[in-house]
């Protein structure tokens, strides 16, 4: 990571960066590898936020236990995001309602945003990264 830290220090202006994640965990690797990008990205000290839409919400479901599948349970890592200064976690309300989920279902504190609110936020970004 040392070279990445150096690169970070060189950087000048801070950019607004949104991570958009829309896939469920475990069925495919996208959710896990998106989280790995967010953790590494934290070292660059940009103005980041993370949006969970569609099946991406399921990444944050409490009570995941992967023992019987033999896979690695990576859901506790979302709790570590705060330590990496990734504090703006947004869940799309429409996606949450469609799945019958509520804020109590999530392993971390999130802000629920309507798609209209996310529209405005997205327009305000310098970069949107999709997984």
């Amino acid at each position, binding site marked *: 990571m040392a070279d990445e830290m150096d690169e970070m220090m060189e950087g000048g202006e801070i950019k607004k960066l949104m991570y958009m994640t829309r896939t469920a965990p*475990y*069925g*495919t*690797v996208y959710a896990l590898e998106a989280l790995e990008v967010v953790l590494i990205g934290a070292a660059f000290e940009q103005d980041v936020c993370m949006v969970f839409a569609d099946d991406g919400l399921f990444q944050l479901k409490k009570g995941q236990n992967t023992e019987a*599948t*033999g*896979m*690695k349970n990576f859901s506790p890592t979302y709790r570590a995001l705060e330590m990496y200064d990734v504090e703006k976690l947004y869940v799309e309300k429409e996606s949450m309602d469609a799945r019958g989920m509520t804020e109590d279902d999530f392993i971390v504190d999130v802000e629920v945003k309507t798609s209209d609110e996310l529209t405005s936020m997205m327009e305000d970004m310098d970069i949107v990264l999709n997984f």
Partner: protein
Amino acid sequence: MKFSIAVHEGPYTHEASDTAYQFVTAALEKGHEIFRVFFYHDGVNNGTRLSTPPQDDRNVIKRWSELAEKHGLDLVVCVAAAQRRGIADADEAKRNGKDADNIAPGFRISGLGQLIEACIQSDRHLTFGD
């Protein structure tokens, strides 16, 4: 009962290989026979020995190799799909003028006919994929 299995997706990328592995393990424990596991599409990527997964995660490829050794499983990687994607054994590497091969222990490369034959010879065929 005689089962044959097709795996259509690569390791880690999709749960297909995990589910297939768990199914095969459970079937063997129940005394069923696994006629063949056929790796097609990106499933051929399960047959590389160059994978080094994180230490706190399962090793999908090694797990297949060990299961094959323990139970004499026939793990077949489709040659056409493997050529596209860069999975080769020593023979394939030589034939295609490559300077290296990457097939994992317990896997063999063969033709698509092996899939059809497996379907015909088995009582049940299941596909795991995307």
